[in-house]
C-alpha cells in the first residue's frame, strides 16, 4: 500500500489523497454533512470517550500501562514497537507495559498516513511515531505534576524511571499506582515536551520484544476462528465457480437434511448454510445443489490474459476502448538513442493468493440497523463504511472488536470488505443480534480472488560506451488495484509502478520512457505484501544484473556507480553493509553462488546477498545476508523477524507461487496445488541494521523484506548458469 503514502501523493499530485476518501465517505454516509473534519465524518455515530491519559494510554490502579493500539497485530509484532514508544517517553517499567486493540473509531484512531483507521503500507510505527511519543510524554507530565503538587516541589526537579517518580533532593518517590488518582485530574499539556532521542534507554535495544509469544505458544490467543458465544451459528457459503457469476437457482433439500443445519439463505455472493457447528455447516454447504448464472462471468484463462498483456506490451495487439497507456517516468528522448546494443527482456508474473494461515472469517451480530463485529479487522474504517451502507446506518455506529489475525498480508484490508459484508448479509438474515461466524475453508479462501495481479513487464535498455544505461524504455501491463477503490484515483495507479517509478537506475539514465497500461479483467485483485514491489523490484534488479554482465562488471560495482550517479546514499549504505557482512568479493562456500539485490519500499531500503545452489533440480537458498535502513530501529529483534518472515514470503512466491485460471475457473484449491515454502526450504536470514543519527524517523519493516529475495536468487542463478529468469514462479508443479 505504498501508494497511499501522502509523501507520494504530495510528490506527484496523483494517487490517494485524504480528500478523495472523504468525498466517498460523504457519499456513502448519504446524510453526512459538509463542514466536519474528515475523520469526524468517518466516525459519525461513534462513541469517542477516552480516559484521562487520552486515546492511547491507560494506566490501571496497579500502575500497569496499556497501549491502546490502533493497528491490528497480524504477525508483524508492531504492538511491541508501538508500546515501546509510549513506554520510552513515559519512562515506564517495560515489564509492566501491555497492549490492547483499539475499538473502531476513525476520529481517534485514524492512520496518520492514510486518513482512515487501517493497518497497511508498513506504516504502523512510521505514522504513530510522533503521536505516541506525545501520548507517552503527556501521561508522564501528568504523573510528574501530580507528584510535584503532592510534595510541594518543582516539576522540573522530578525524574521518572521504571514507573517510579522521584524527587532526589527530598528523597521522596512514588510509583504510578500511588499517583494515578491525582495525575488523572491534571490537565494534559497541550504540547508535551519530548525526550532527547539521544537519551532513549528502551527504543533500539534488544529489550523491545513481543508481548504475545507466551499466549501464541500455548494456544491461548483468541483469533476470529476461536470466537465462541452462546447461541453462535456457523455459516459457510457456496460461491460461484467463476468470478462475476450469480445464483440462478438452488435446491437446499439435502443441505437441510444434514443434522445441525439450521437454515439456508440466498445472499448476494452465493448460498449460505448456517448450522449449530462447523462440521454441520460444511456438510450442509457441500450438499447444496446450485445452478449458476454465468452470463456475466469472467471466462478467460490466465494464459490468455498473460498472452494479451504480452501482445499489448510489444505493440502487436490493438488497444480496446478505455485502454490507454499512461506515462509514469519520462525524460529525454529514447527514440533518438542508438539501439544496436539494446537489452530487451520481457517478464511474466502470475496471480498470487495471500493464503494467510487463518482463512478469511468474521463474526457478526445484527439487529435492525445495528451491527457488532468481532474479528480481525485490518481496515476498520473500510469495514464500517461497507457495513453501514448495507444497514443504512452511520459508519461510526458499526461496532468492531478487533482480534489478532492469523496473517493477512493485505488480504484483510479490502475495499469491498468482501468476507465481512458476506458475514453481515447472513447475520442480517438471521437477525435478533444472534452471532454468526462465517468460516471460509481453505478452498473458499483460495478461490475467492483479490490476488496479487498478473503482471507483464517489457524493458528495453540501450547502454553508453561504459555499459551504463543511456535510454530505458519500460512498459508495464497489469490490472489496476486502485481502480476498485472507493477513493477513486484517476491518473497512474501508483501501486502498479512503485519501485520502477522512482528507481535510482532510472534517475541515473538520461533518457526514459516508462508507461503503464491497466486493462480491465474480471478477476478481483488486491495489494499483496509489498504490492508493486513484488514485481518491480524483480524487474529492476534482475535487469541491472543482466546489464552489469553485458558490461563485464561486478554487479555490486555496477550498482554503486549508478547509485553514485543518482545520489542514492541510502542504497549505497545498505549495499555496502550487505557486501561487508556477506563476504561478497571473496569466494562463496563450496557449491554455492551469490546473488545481490537492493530495493527501496515503504520508506526503507533493503539489500540482500543470497547464497544459492541447485538441489534436486530446484533452487535451494541458504544464507541470506540482509541490510536494512529503516530509520530509527525501535525493536531490532522484530526487525530481524520481519526480514526473516518477509524473505520467506517473497521466496515462496518467487519459487512456487501461482494462481492460474482455466476458462475462468481457479485451478488451485489448497496447499497441495498452491505450493508454499516449507521448513526445509527456508533460508537462514541474517539481519544487519544501518545505524542512524538519534531521532531519525522510523520507516517500514513489515513489507520491505519481501521483494528483494526474488531478484537476489535470480541474480545468483544468472551468475551460475548465464541465463536470465524471466517468469515466476521458477519451479512449476
Amino acid at each position: 500500500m505504498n501508494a497511499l503514502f501522502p509523501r507520494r501523493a504530495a510528490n506527484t499530485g496523483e494517487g490517494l489523497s485524504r480528500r478523495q476518501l472523504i468525498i466517498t465517505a460523504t457519499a456513502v454516509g448519504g446524510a453526512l454533512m459538509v463542514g466536519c473534519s474528515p475523520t469526524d465524518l468517518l466516525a459519525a455515530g461513534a462513541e469517542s470517550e477516552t480516559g484521562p491519559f487520552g486515546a492511547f494510554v491507560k494506566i490501571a490502579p496497579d500502575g500497569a500501562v496499556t497501549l491502546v493500539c490502533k493497528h491490528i497485530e497480524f504477525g508483524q509484532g508492531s504492538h511491541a514497537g508501538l508500546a515501546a514508544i509510549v513506554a520510552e517517553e513515559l519512562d515506564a517499567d517495560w515489564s509492566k507495559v501491555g497492549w490492547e486493540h483499539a475499538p473502531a473509531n476513525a476520529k481517534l484512531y485514524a492512520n496518520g498516513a492514510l486518513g482512515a483507521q487501517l493497518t497497511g503500507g508498513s506504516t504502523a510505527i512510521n505514522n504513530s511515531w510522533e503521536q505516541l511519543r506525545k501520548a507517552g510524554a503527556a501521561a508522564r507530565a501528568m504523573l510528574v505534576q501530580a507528584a510535584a503538587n503532592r510534595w510541594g516541589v518543582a516539576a522540573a526537579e522530578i525524574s521518572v524511571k521504571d514507573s517510579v517518580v522521584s524527587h532526589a533532593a527530598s528523597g521522596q518517590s512514588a510509583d504510578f499506582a500511588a499517583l494515578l488518582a491525582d495525575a488523572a485530574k491534571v490537565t494534559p499539556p497541550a504540547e508535551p515536551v519530548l525526550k532527547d532521542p539521544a537519551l532513549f534507554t528502551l527504543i533500539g535495544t534488544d529489550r523491545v520484544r513481543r508481548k504475545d509469544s507466551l499466549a501464541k505458544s500455548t494456544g491461548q490467543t483468541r483469533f476470529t476462528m476461536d470466537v465462541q458465544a452462546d447461541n453462535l451459528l456457523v455459516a459457510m457459503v457456496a460461491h460461484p465457480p467463476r468470478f462475476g457469476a450469480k445464483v440462478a437457482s438452488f435446491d437446499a433439500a439435502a443441505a437441510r437434511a444434514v443434522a445441525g443445519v439450521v437454515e439456508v439463505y440466498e445472499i448476494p455472493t452465493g448460498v449460505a448454510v448456517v448450522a449449530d457447528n462447523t462440521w454441520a455447516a460444511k456438510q450442509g454447504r457441500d450438499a447444496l445443489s446450485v445452478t449458476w448464472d454465468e452470463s456475466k462471468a469472467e471466462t478467460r484463462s490466465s494464459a490468455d490474459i498473460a498472452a494479451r498483456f504480452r501482445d499489448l506490451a510489444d505493440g502487436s495487439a490493438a488497444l480496446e476502448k478505455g485502454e490507454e497507456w499512461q506515462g509514469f517516468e519520462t525524460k529525454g528522448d529514447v527514440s533518438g538513442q542508438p539501439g544496436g546494443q539494446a537489452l530487451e527482456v520481457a517478464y511474466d508474473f502470475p496471480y498470487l493468493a495471500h493464503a494467510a494461515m487463518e482463512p478469511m472469517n468474521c463474526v457478526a451480530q445484527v439487529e435492525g440497523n445495528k451491527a457488532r463485529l468481532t474479528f480481525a479487522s485490518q481496515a476498520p474504517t473500510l469495514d464500517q463504511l461497507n457495513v453501514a451502507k448495507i444497514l443504512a446506518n452511520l459508519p461510526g455506529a458499526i461496532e468492531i472488536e478487533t482480534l489478532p489475525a492469523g496473517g493477512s498480508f493485505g488480504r484483510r484490508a479490502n475495499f469491498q470488505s468482501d468476507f465481512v459484508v458476506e458475514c453481515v448479509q447472513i447475520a442480517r438474515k438471521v437477525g435478533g443480534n444472534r452471532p454468526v461466524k462465517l468460516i471460509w475453508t481453505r478452498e473458499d479462501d483460495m478461490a475467492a480472488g483479490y490476488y496479487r495481479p498478473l503482471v507483464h513487464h517489457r524493458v528495453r535498455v540501450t547502454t553508453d560506451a561504459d555499459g551504463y544505461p543511456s535510454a530505458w524504455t519500460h512498459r508495464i501491463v497489469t490490472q489496476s488495484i486502485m481502480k476498485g477503490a472507493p477513493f477513486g484515483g484517476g491518473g497512474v495507479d501508483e501501486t502498479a509502478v512503485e519501485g520502477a517509478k522512482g528507481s535510482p537506475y532510472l534517475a541515473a539514465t538520461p533518457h526514459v520512457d516508462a508507461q503503464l497500461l491497466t486493462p480491465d479483467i474480471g478477476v478481483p485483485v488486491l495489494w499483496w505484501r509489498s504490492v508493486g514491489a513484488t514485481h518491480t523490484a524483480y524487474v529492476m534488479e534482475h535487469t541491472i544484473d543482466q546489464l552489469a554482465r553485458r558490461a563485464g562488471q561486478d554487479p555490486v560495482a555496477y550498482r554503486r556507480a549508478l547509485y553514485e550517479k543518482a545520489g542514492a546514499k541510502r542504497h549505497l549504505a545498505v549495499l555496502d553493509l550487505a557486501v561487508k557482512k556477506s563476504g561478497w568479493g571473496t569466494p562463496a562456500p563450496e557449491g554455492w553462488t551469490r546473488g545481490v539485490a537492493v530495493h527501496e519500499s515503504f520508506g526503507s531500503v533493503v539489500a540482500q546477498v543470497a547464497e544459492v545452489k541447485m538441489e534436486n533440480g530446484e533452487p535451494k537458498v541458504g544464507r541470506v545476508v540482509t541490510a536494512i535502513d529503516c530509520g530509527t530501529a525501535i525493536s531490532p529483534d522484530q526487525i530481524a523477524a520481519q526480514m526473516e518472515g518477509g524473505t520467506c514470503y517473497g521466496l515462496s512466491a518467487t519459487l512456487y507461487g501461482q494462481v492460474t485460471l482455466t476458462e475462468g475457473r481457479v485451478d488451485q484449491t489448497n496447499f497441495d496445488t498452491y505450493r508454499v515454502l516449507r521448513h526445509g526450504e527456508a533460508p537462514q536470514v541474517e539481519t544487519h541494521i544501518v545505524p542512524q543519527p538519534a531521532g531519525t524517523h522510523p520507516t517500514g519493516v513489515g513489507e520491505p523484506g519481501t521483494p528483494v529475495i526474488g531478484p537476489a536468487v535470480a541474480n545468483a542463478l544468472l551468475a551460475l548458469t548465464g541465463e536470465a529468469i524471466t517468469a515466476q514462479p521458477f519451479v512449476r508443479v
Partner: protein
Amino acid sequence: MAITLDVNGKQLTVEATDDTPLLWVLRDELGLTGTKYGCGVAQCGACTVLADGAPIRSCLTPVSALGAAKITTIEGLGGEHPLQEAWVALDVPQCGYCQSGQIMSAAALLAQSPKPTDAEIDGAMAGNICRCGAYQRIHAAIKAASGQTPAAAPQTDA
C-alpha cells in the same frame, strides 16, 4: 452419537456424528480452540495433536477412529514444556496461528529423538506450514529446547 475421548488426561463424552473430524470436536464441542484449522486436507499441520504420542492431523481423523487413544492438544502441554519455553525465549511466533501445530509436531519429534539433527528436524516439520515464515526461529527453538544451542534471540547489530 455419544463418543468418549481421552483428551489431555480427562475422559470426556461428546455428542457428534462419527464422521466428524476430531478437530471440530475439540474446537466446537470441547472448547479447545488452541488446535487450528488451516487446510482440512492434511497439508498444513495447523491441526496437529498427539494420539498416544504420535502426531496426527486432527482435520482428517474421524472422531470415531480414536478408540482409547490418549489425545494431547496444545492445552495439554502445560505451558512450561521446554519447547514452549524456547518458543517464548526466541519470540518464534509471528501471527501465531500455525504455532500450536508446530509445537505439537516438534513435541512428537523430541519424544522420539531427544537431540534431533537438522535433517531430522526438516523431515519432522515438513508437514507444518508457516505462512509468516517463522521457520528459522522454529528450527532454532527446537535446537534450543533439545539442549543443542543456547536459547538466545538471534543477534542483530543495530
